[in-house]
């Protein structure tokens, strides 16, 4: 796009690239290397730029002393279930918006999408007593249900955009053959929409995996805690902060989501920016 044949242009471009790149990537580098530093190297006024005496001690203490693995398992169960339910709901709703005509369609769509703009903190105030009344406070199902709010609006919209591109002739033809609407959706529309469904699943998974607010409030027992609040409550204690352990545990907690994302990022970006950019 830019002509970088002149030295000035190249210099300015390189300076900007290095500065922003440094801002984006240095913290990740620092997280990664700090996890491999022993306490003697970690707590120095002038830090070393790479671990001179790399050690796995932080990982060992993070895994054996804390409840990291248990919290990871909880996160996996909660995020997996929340993402699955969210994808199912968004699938049918998105299909309905994309391929059916009915009077209040636009209004319902507006209602559903508007959920994205309600601050979660406000909903939590009344969600909390509601969950208590239902006996769902401090339970994983309660947290899973609450997580639907995060991803449903955007997921529905992503699938709506995707399904809109599936040719209607395909659906009409199956209808003419006498296939039921559910069958048409399951055997014709869904198979060609797997990338979009996977993206929506990952999107829902990411929201739940990364959440702190709901997980911290709706779960009280340490044994049911998910990884976000689990990390916070285990490591960020002013009197006795274990930064090495915090970095190692952070690395372990981030790996699943970063790896999943690495495989699917291309689809993911298309899905998230769908409809908003044209």
């Amino acid at each position, binding site marked *: *796009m*830019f*002509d970088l044949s002149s030295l000035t242009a190249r210099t300015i*471009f390189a300076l900007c690239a290095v500065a922003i*790149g440094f801002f*984006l990537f240095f913290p*990740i580098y*620092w997280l990664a290397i*700090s996890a491999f530093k022993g306490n003697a190297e970690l707590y120095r006024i002038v830090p070393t730029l790479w671990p001179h005496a790399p050690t796995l001690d932080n990982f060992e203490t993070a895994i054996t002393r804390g409840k990291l693995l248990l919290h990871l398992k909880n996160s996996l169960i909660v995020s997996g279930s929340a993402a699955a339910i969210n994808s*199912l709901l*968004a699938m*049918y709703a998105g299909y*309905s918006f994309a391929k*059916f*005509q009915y009077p209040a*369609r*636009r209004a*319902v769509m*507006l209602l*559903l999408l508007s959920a*994205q*703009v*309600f*601050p979660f*903190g*406000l909903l939590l*105030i*009344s*969600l*909390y007593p*509601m969950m208590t009344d239902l006996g769902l406070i401090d339970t994983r199902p309660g947290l899973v*249900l609450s997580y639907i*709010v995060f991803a*449903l609006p955007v997921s529905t919209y992503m699938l709506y955009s995707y399904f809109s*591109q*599936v*040719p209607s*002739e395909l659906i*009409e033809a199956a209808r003419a053959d006498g296939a039921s609407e559910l069958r048409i959706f399951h055997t014709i529309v869904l198979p*060609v929409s797997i990338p979009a469904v996977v993206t929506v699943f990952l999107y829902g998974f*990411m929201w739940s*995996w*990364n*959440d*702190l607010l709901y997980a911290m409030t709706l779960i009280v027992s340490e044994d049911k805690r998910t*990884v976000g609040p689990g990390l*916070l409550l285990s490591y*960020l204690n002013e009197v006795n902060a274990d*930064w090495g352990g915090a*970095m190692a545990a*952070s690395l372990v*907690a981030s790996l699943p989501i*970063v790896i999943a994302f*690495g495989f699917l*990022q291309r689809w993911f970006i*298309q899905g*998230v*920016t769908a409809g908003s*950019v*044209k």
Partner: protein
Amino acid sequence: MASSAAVESPPLRISPAARRGGLKANERRIGWLFLVPALLAFAGVIALPFVRALGIAFTRNDLRTPVPRFIGFDNFKTILASPEIMGSFVTTAIYVTAATAFTLVLGLAWALILNQPFRGRTALRAASLIPWVLPSTVTAFVWGWIFNSRYGVLNAGLIELGLIDRQQAWLSDATGAMTAVVVTKVWLSIPLFMSFFLAGLQSLDREQVDAARVDGAGNFAILRDHILPHLRPVVLVVIVLGLIGNLQHFDTIYALTSGGPVRATTVLSIEVFRRAFDQWDLGLASAVGLLWVATIMPAAYFYLRHLLRGV
């Protein structure tokens, strides 16, 4: 994808026009049926809590009043009379403006850089998304460690460069803490902003840019006359999305500063959380929450209108 199958599909046996009458009622019913699960979930975890919060805002409902008692607009009067709560609106304005503005500039710059062809660009684009997918606690840990007053690499780096002469206690100083939470949020949001800009740049007419270059336009002129005008709609969407996201943001601020020192980083999300779950004053918390929703509404209006155009 689906298009090749569509071409091979058998011709319709009944003309669409002939079927239309019976189909329409059926279509309406089935369309609604497909919506039922999502609408039930929406009603349960979004609509109902919101309506209840709306009700609670007009009641006294705290530890001494476990059963809500209607008090009209008293909570709102309390808010207006409280310099603390009014202060959190100001803090929110500062936080949201700074976070949105810096993310906008850096996200745009980074997208323009990654739009330039060079080796390793694809990998760099993918890696640029990492800050966005990290759990919020991890993000807070990373920056908490960087901003650490005694062992933080930021202080060490700034002293090394001669920019400061002694360690700054970033997180226990009002300005320092605000800087830290803004920097953290900017870092976290650049990937999303960048993705929108990159998507927008794909539809830029390259021939037009090349023609302008032949006419003698320099890089700056191309940016000003072609790229920025082309990205205008994307910039608007991104600003609106950024405002909504930053107005709602809670996680990394809470994990980094819990709204402190004192109240220096107590934005509305923290204010509502503390009133509700530290002080258990649900009435006042809901009232603040409703005003919080009101601050989001203008941006939300533009965003929803944008999403639903052409529906």
